[in-house]
């Protein structure tokens, strides 16, 4: 089965890895990862063999009736009727068995896919944030959607095609050999070249389809630029040029489509050609040497019908070769994901965090997202319980990474993060979520109601608790003004609310959970003044009685903090009160001058 070994299966980066994995290896790993495959699968395959053998009923009936039903004195009616009744019954029984087998195979396939999909999903959430960068996110989604869908399509057609057609070919060739082994040999020899022939066309076709797909996405991005940039195009008089480019890319897409369709057009008819050749060979050889081998006319006619039965399955296997390869690549990708080691391991027994403001200590903390590319170096920090600390620094200085380590979105590569006197690695998920709360910049909300989104902060909270959280942050009026109050639907990703409003929700969520350590990633995008005011008040209220670490983008935040920690290139370079740091100058001095230069004009 070397033909299905992945050769150029995947143009992506994984190609190298996949090339080393043979089809058999993927199959073996796949079966290991899917216990669903082991239950009753062999029974289904046995049924499939029986059903495939059943396809020979008609050719055998023809042979029997022609050779034995027609005697020199005319038809032997009792034999013919008996043979036909047997054939009718066999066909009907096999149709029932066919249905059972097909349903069994498809059900198994769906259950395997379900298992694979849900295990992959759970695994993705077990991986640390290091695996969740913006760029990798699309890949992760693909693993549980399109990659599995490729497998699903394969399961409902390709995989079954392999099982059914392979057994059909084997059974038919055996039947042919039983009638006359030389004919079986000839059919095999004549039909074998169909696979490499289809393979050649298929490879070209694949390349052409790839080309076409790129042209499709070119056109699509041209169109999307036309729509998104419509104001720019029009106010700069660039419509004429945009029109020309759009039509050029539509034209290129058209040409690429025709090239791909050319291969599509010549691919399948190959089987018609080979079918003609095989029939001609069987008939030619059969009539020339058959009488000498002691064959009967009916046997040769049956051989012709069996040959017809073989051509179709061979062509179908040829057609699913490519799909098989894609499916194996997809399968491999999902399996690779499942093999990805979980890097943030939850402790078996969790230690409790004290139910008060939490002190924070970073001991020689270093961190790298990718080996050899550290973003934090040997950070040593102590933050007192109840302190209000601002962390500042340029983009990429490591301040956001530190925030992530504080709530264990990832573990430090070296050193340890101690919160409330406990190494964060010994604190379980739930305890961590209750004690340490990060309010992220983008304030992502789930596509449900406001109240449900806030309740995520503490699942047992009542409606009154949720409203109470808003009110204690001075946001009661804001909630009342929303179209449906707490029941307002926030839309996909919270799009029905503004960035600032989403942060308000995140703050209410934190208030509800009453954490001892609050980490706030300030929004950088502009927030409308009204919301900004609400946010400021809510934050001040929320911070009371907790340790607060703010990743600050604004001077006012840094200025209001008890202490300012300045990050630069992965290290803490300055640490002190606002006034001390301003006096020191350095990185903070420059940032401050830049801020002050603007706001205090």
């Amino acid at each position, binding site marked *: 089965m070397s033909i299905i070994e992945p050769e150029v299966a995947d143009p992506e980066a994984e190609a190298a890895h996949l090339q080393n994995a043979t089809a058999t290896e993927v199959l073996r790993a796949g079966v290991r990862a899917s216990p669903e495959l082991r239950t009753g699968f062999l029974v289904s395959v046995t049924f499939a063999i029986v059903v495939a053998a059943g*396809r020979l009923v008609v050719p055998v009936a023809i042979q029997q009736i022609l050779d034995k039903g*027609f005697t020199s004195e005319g*038809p032997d009616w009792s034999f013919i009727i008996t043979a036909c009744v047997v054939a009718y019954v066999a*066909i009907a029984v096999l149709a*029932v068995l*066919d*249905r*059972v*087998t*097909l349903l069994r195979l*498809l*059900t198994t396939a769906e259950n395997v896919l379900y298992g694979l999909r*849900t295990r992959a999903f759970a695994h993705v959430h077990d991986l640390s944030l290091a695996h*969740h960068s913006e760029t990798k996110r699309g890949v992760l989604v693909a693993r*549980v*959607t399109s990659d599995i869908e490729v497998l699903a399509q394969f399961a409902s*057609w390709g995989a*079954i095609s392999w099982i059914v057609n392979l057994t059909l070919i084997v059974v038919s060739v055996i039947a042919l050999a039983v009638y006359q082994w030389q004919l079986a040999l000839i059919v095999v020899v004549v039909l074998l070249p169909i696979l490499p022939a289809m393979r050649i066309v298929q490879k070209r076709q694949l390349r052409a389809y790839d080309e076409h797909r790129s042209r*499709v996405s070119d056109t699509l*991005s041209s*169109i999307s*630029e*036309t*729509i998104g940039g*419509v104001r720019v195009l029009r*106010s700069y*008089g660039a*419509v*004429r040029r945009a*029109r020309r480019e759009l*039509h050029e890319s*539509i034209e290129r897409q*058209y040409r690429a489509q*025709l090239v791909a*369709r050319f291969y*599509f057009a010549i691919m*399948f008819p190959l089987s018609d050609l080979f079918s003609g*050749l095989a029939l001609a*060979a069987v*008939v*030619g050889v059969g*009539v020339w040497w058959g009488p000498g081998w002691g*064959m009967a006319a009916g046997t*040769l*006619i049956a051989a012709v*019908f069996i040959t017809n039965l073989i051509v179709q399955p061979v062509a179908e296997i040829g057609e699913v070769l490519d799909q098989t390869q894609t499916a194996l690549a997809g399968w491999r990708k999902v399996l690779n994901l499942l093999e990805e080691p979980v890097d943030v391991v939850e402790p078996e027994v969790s230690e409790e965090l004290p139910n008060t403001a939490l002190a924070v200590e970073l001991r020689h903390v270093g961190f790298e997202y990718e080996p050899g590319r550290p973003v934090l170096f040997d950070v040593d920090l102590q933050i007192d319980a109840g302190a209000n600390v601002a962390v500042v620094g340029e983009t990429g200085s490591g301040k956001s990474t530190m925030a992530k380590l504080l709530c264990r979105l990832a573990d430090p590569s070296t050193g340890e993060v101690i919160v409330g006197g406990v190494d964060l690695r010994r604190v379980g998920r739930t305890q961590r979520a209750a004690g340490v*709360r*990060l309010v992220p910049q983008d304030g992502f*909300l*789930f596509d449900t109601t406001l109240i449900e989104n806030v309740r995520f902060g503490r*699942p047992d909270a009542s409606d009154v608790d949720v409203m109470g959280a808003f009110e204690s942050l001075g946001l009661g009026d804001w909630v009342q003004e929303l179209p449906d109050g707490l029941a307002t639907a926030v839309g996909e990703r919270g799009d029905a609310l503004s960035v600032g409003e989403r942060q308000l929700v995140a703050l209410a969520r934190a208030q509800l959970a009453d954490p001892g350590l609050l980490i706030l990633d300030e929004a950088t995008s*502009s927030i409308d003044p009204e919301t900004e005011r609400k946010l400021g008040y809510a934050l001040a209220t929320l911070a009371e009685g907790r340790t607060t670490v703010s990743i600050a983008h604004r001077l006012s935040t840094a200025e209001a903090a008890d202490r300012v920690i300045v990050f630069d290139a992965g290290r803490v370079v300055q640490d002190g009160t606002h006034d001390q740091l301003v006096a020191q100058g350095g990185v903070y001095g*420059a940032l401050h001058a*830049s*801020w002050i*230069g*603007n*706001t*205090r*004009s």
Partner: protein
Amino acid sequence: MSTHSHTDELVPDDESPAEENPAGVTLDDGDETALSISLGAKLIARFVRMHPAPFVLSIIGGVGWAAMIVAASIVLGRITDEVIEPAFDEGIDGGTVWWAVAALVGVGALRGLTVVVRRWFGSVTEARMQRSLRSAVADRLLEMPMGSYRNRPTGQLLATSDVDVTTATQMLMPLPFSLGVIALVVFSLASLWSADPMFAVVAVLLFPALAWLSRYYTTRIHEPAALVQQKLGRVSAIAHESFDGVMVVKTLAREEPERVRFDEAARDLADERIGLARLTSIFEPLIIMLPNLGMVTLLIVGAARVESGGATIGDLVQAVALFGWLAFPMRIVGFLFQALPRAVVSIARVDDLLAEPVDPAYAPDSASESDVVTESTARQTAAVARRSAARSGVPEAPEVPAPKPAVVEELLPEGPLSLELDGVGFSFGDARVLHDVSFRAEPGEVLAIVGSTGSGKSTLVNLLAHLDEPTSGTIRLGGVETTALDADELRAAVSVAYQESYLFARSIVDNVRLGRDVSDEAVQAALRRSLADGFVSELPEGPATVVGERGVTLSGGQRQRIALARALAGGPRVVVADDATSAVDPVVESQILETLRDGDTTMLVIAHRLSTITLADRILHLEDGTVRGIGTHEELLADPEYVALVTAYEDDAPVEGVGAQDAPTGASGVAGGKR
């Protein structure tokens, strides 16, 4: 047992809209089948009129294929009688054997050829049709008035120009095949009748059963198949949401509830698919069983006919072989019935977009289009010609009545320009967005425009950019009414930099130049003036660097500075900056605005930052679509509404501290150093 292998025959896998659109295109509810068949027939007629030649050829291929199937069965029957039977009785000569071999190979090759013809010309029809529709949609996107964009979300426009166009034309592949199948039924009955009328009787019983079964099956799976798409969309939506919100999931320890939520959706999908498998696994065995039963019946009938001398063994073999080849093609008709309603729904959406009016300002004038000389001019001209031919099947757009009466075009005065609005109002539909807006920006003045959300600022920008025409009042540039100006001259004089700083996926130079006749030096100068030259020169290929799609490789502030350079590159005399530096570091922003205040350029700056506002000579305060006040910052401070507005803008800077309007020259050094 069989498989779905031949679905490929219908939808070649180069495009599968369902995959790209996992939520699935909303399909009709099976009830409208009758309606959609008549609409479908109209649609087919319309497509045929647009590209008749390849369509007819694909049908010839389809019918030829049917003829070749029947011919193959006849050849087999004749060979049985004249070669096989004699060979085993009295023996035959070599020539006869070669004749038989040649006939079998020939009929197989010819059958393959007809398939090639059908598939190729079917593809050509479909591809040309898609090109025609896509071009028409693209033109309409370029030509429809801005108002049309307000009513149509971007996602919907994209879906129409891609998925809908594809879906509308997808039935062009199964169509010639289906016609071939109908021909196959006719040819088969004729050949069976001529072999032996009794064989035709068996076929007459079998054909309708197969056709009905196929039709019934496609109808039955319609709803569950749509449900599967829906469930798949749900699975995909949860995965997207859950992974996008991974920060929330992790910080709130919601992994378990998320897993449960996804499990339920995945189980639902699996169950729905298993439900579909229940239908499929009944249909597939039946569609194989029926012809087999027919073949055995033929054997009985055939034996009787052979006994009575009405038919030969060869006739019987011919009939049996034909029956064996019938099962698969019969289901194609079912697929056509499936594709047709989808096509009707999609073409309706395409037509709906094509019914948008054309703004004559953006309609192509053939003269200017053809004098654009490119390497592909010839191809291009051909494409344009084809496109206009294609227009015959595309609804003509109503033109928006030209807003301007034919006035003799006037010329702008030399030097800095004033900008004057006189009683300008704008409304779309019933909504009055601007009314009675009158003000005058002096030549070379920097005028800031402030106002709360919904005060009409963006609409004002659209009017100043001439993307929309005022519904009342006049706009005068350098004393000349803008409606009396040539569009190109107007665009050269007034340029707009937008907040969203849309960048195209091409080089920075191209983005700044945007197809205008602007020298490299002017591009460089513009980048310098918008303080973008520093970071641009540090990019891998400097100004020739291609920015990622939508400019993702640059920060928001950097994108805005390039967009600003674009506005400056044409040497405009009036610049409208629509919060165009909102993401730029405030210090850099001040510096940019300082360099722009050169006395030659009149500037209208929509501003949010106090620092920007105080840089302006005067400030225009918009409220509820009209002018609330205009004057210097100090003058306006007398208005408590203005104070509230600008205070809210900058929490950090108390208003009483803002007295001096002097430029923050001290800070420029820092920004300069940072660069």
